């Protein structure tokens, strides 16, 4: 074995933009991995200095601003798109990025979100889909799988009471003002790489003034799924991806 003095090259570690502090997420939460992706893509595109982040209410409310070293504000529950609208309209050159959970964007914020798309705003949304309300202790989200037990669907979500799981990027893709809409996951190294590429493309749509972009991240929530971090990985590949196919639903260089 070579003595440790021999020369080494750093392959990876904490990204420059990842503030060295204990993350606010639970053990095994994928939000931490997504945080890394955001940091790396911002660095690679060299846009961290123009970035203004808006965190919705959810685990990323404090989680994102406290760990990613760019300008941030947290937002009232579901309202990040309205706040982003104003900021982008006032500073068209800024890179305006919202980070929202599936309850934040898909339930209370669905109207705010859809109206931003109707107006054809030009910011980028990172949509975190963990199929539950994490922060508040695992209640049903619009993205909860049919049959999935949560604290407000004790016998599992059913269509009669709660309808069907909500597919956000597919919905966004139907709106004329949207330039990019994709879904990805970070539950394997391969998907990690694809996710980075997707986010990069979404950011580029904004940088190049083409239009709105959204990337959904399928994300594990161990405590509220009642699974260990490792069991969560299987739940994602077996259950989540069945309901939520990965891929690009829209990718245009000219909206309309």
């Amino acid at each position, binding site marked *: 074995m070579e003595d440790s003095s021999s020369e*080494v090259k750093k392959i990876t*570690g904490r990204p420059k933009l990842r503030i060295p502090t204990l993350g606010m997420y639970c053990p095994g939460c994928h939000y931490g991995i997504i945080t890394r992706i955001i940091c790396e893509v911002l660095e690679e595109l060299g846009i961290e200095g123009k970035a203004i982040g808006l965190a919705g209410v959810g685990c990323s409310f404090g989680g994102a601003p406290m760990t990613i070293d760019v300008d941030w504000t947290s937002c009232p529950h579901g309202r990040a798109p309205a706040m982003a609208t104003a900021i982008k309209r006032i500073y068209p050159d800024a890179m305006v990025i919202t980070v929202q959970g599936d309850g934040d964007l898909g339930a209370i914020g669905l109207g705010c979100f859809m109206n931003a798309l109707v107006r054809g705003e030009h910011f980028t949304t990172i949509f975190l889909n963990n199929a539950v309300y994490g922060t508040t202790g695992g209640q049903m989200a619009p993205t909860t799988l049919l049959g999935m037990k949560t604290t407000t669907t004790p016998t599992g979500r059913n269509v009669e009471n709660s309808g069907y799981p909500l597919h956000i990027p597919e919905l966004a893709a139907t709106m004329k003002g949207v330039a990019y809409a994709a879904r990805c996951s970070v539950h394997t190294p391969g998907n990690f790489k694809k996710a980075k590429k997707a986010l990069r493309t979404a950011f580029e749509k904004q940088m190049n003034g083409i239009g709105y972009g959204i990337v959904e991240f399928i994300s594990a929530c161990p405590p509220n799924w009642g699974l260990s971090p490792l069991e969560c990985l299987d739940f994602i590949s077996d259950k989540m991806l069945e309901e939520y196919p990965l891929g690009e639903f829209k990718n245009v260089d000219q909206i309309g």
Partner: protein
Amino acid sequence: MPRGKIEIIEEFCKGCQLCVHFCSKECIEISRDRFSPNGFLLPEFVNEEACIGCGICGWMCPECTIDVYRYVED
């Protein structure tokens, strides 16, 4: 075969074991008796020989608390 090593900054570790899971070379194991200040069992880099410095454990660590290095062939 490239060779590598990792360093785990323990104060930020939450013991989620993703690094253990994703290391295809089984270089990382969870300790039976070492705890983080918050009471999580800590992972340990137990198999340096096998490490190829692929970087995967580093990427997949939610706390970004693993530094991965590769030895420069000369």
